[in-house]
């Protein structure tokens, strides 16, 4: 309760409410989204079988650390449950549209980079299938 006769700049309250809104509502959604995105991307990279074990180890460590960091910094109250669920749902929906995640060697950078092959990318899917067949 604040006396309304006090002339407090509205920006002060606005900044507070924006920050509060972010931590209470947006942050749980971001954490849910990033957690699922990270684990699913990791799972798909592992399933492709092309990545070396140190890469898998590093990716798994980073993804789990990000998700745990998110949980630690999350304001835990009952209202965050549906928001966290929304983030998880959104990430799952996006991942369902992804055919595969590969880590090809970048010709110029000479390092492995993450490449996403979407379900609509027929050319990319065919190339991937050919590469897999050739490996077998």
């Amino acid at each position, binding site marked *: 309760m604040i006396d309304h006769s006090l002339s407090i700049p509205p920006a*002060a309250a606005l900044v*507070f409410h924006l920050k509060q809104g972010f931590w209470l509502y947006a942050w749980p959604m971001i954490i849910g989204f990033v957690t699922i995105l990270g684990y699913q991307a990791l799972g798909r990279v592992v399933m492709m079988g092309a990545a070396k074990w140190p890469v898998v180890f590093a990716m798994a460590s980073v993804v789990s650390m990000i998700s745990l960091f998110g949980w630690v910094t999350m304001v835990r109250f009952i209202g965050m449950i549906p928001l966290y669920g929304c983030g998880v749902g959104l990430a799952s929906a996006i991942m369902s549209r992804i055919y595969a995640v590969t880590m090809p060697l970048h010709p110029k950078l000479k390092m492995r980079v993450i490449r996403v092959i979407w379900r609509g990318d027929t050319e990319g899917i065919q190339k991937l299938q050919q590469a897999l067949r050739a490996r077998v």
Partner: protein
Amino acid sequence: MKLGLFLLLVSLTLDAQGLVPRPAPDLRIVEASGKATTLSTFRGRVVLLAFISTQCAHCQRASMVFQQLSHEFAGNLQVAEVAFDEGADTPAFTKRFGLSFPIGVSNTDLTHDFLGIAHGERLGTPQVVVIDRSGMIRAQSERLGSPILQTYDYLRELLKATIKLQVAR
């Protein structure tokens, strides 16, 4: 419909707490050393008073904010705290967080009386109160706590406005 309105009014009445602005009741702040100060001795300065529990993490964080503000508004602002948790070790609390303002000890009933809240009602801590130079309460936390009154940026603006309010009169 009528029953709903009636129940709403009853719930609002039950949740009633002292409104602002209102005159601050006098309060005796007795520190652990036995030194006693009354709130009325701070008249002429804006007072930032907080009722805390020394074990509560929000109170600990807010106390550090209050310390920073007490330096920033030195001469115009008096910060004081009253710990109302059982067995509060205020000297240890003061030392741990490097606080230089008086911290008294009290009990829950006195805290409820000062805040204008019925005895037995659950309180969120810290309960922050801003009193102007003439002894009027200008801001007070909601019964279950107001995070906005624990943040440095907002409190600074609120205190500036309270200090200015007196200069204008």
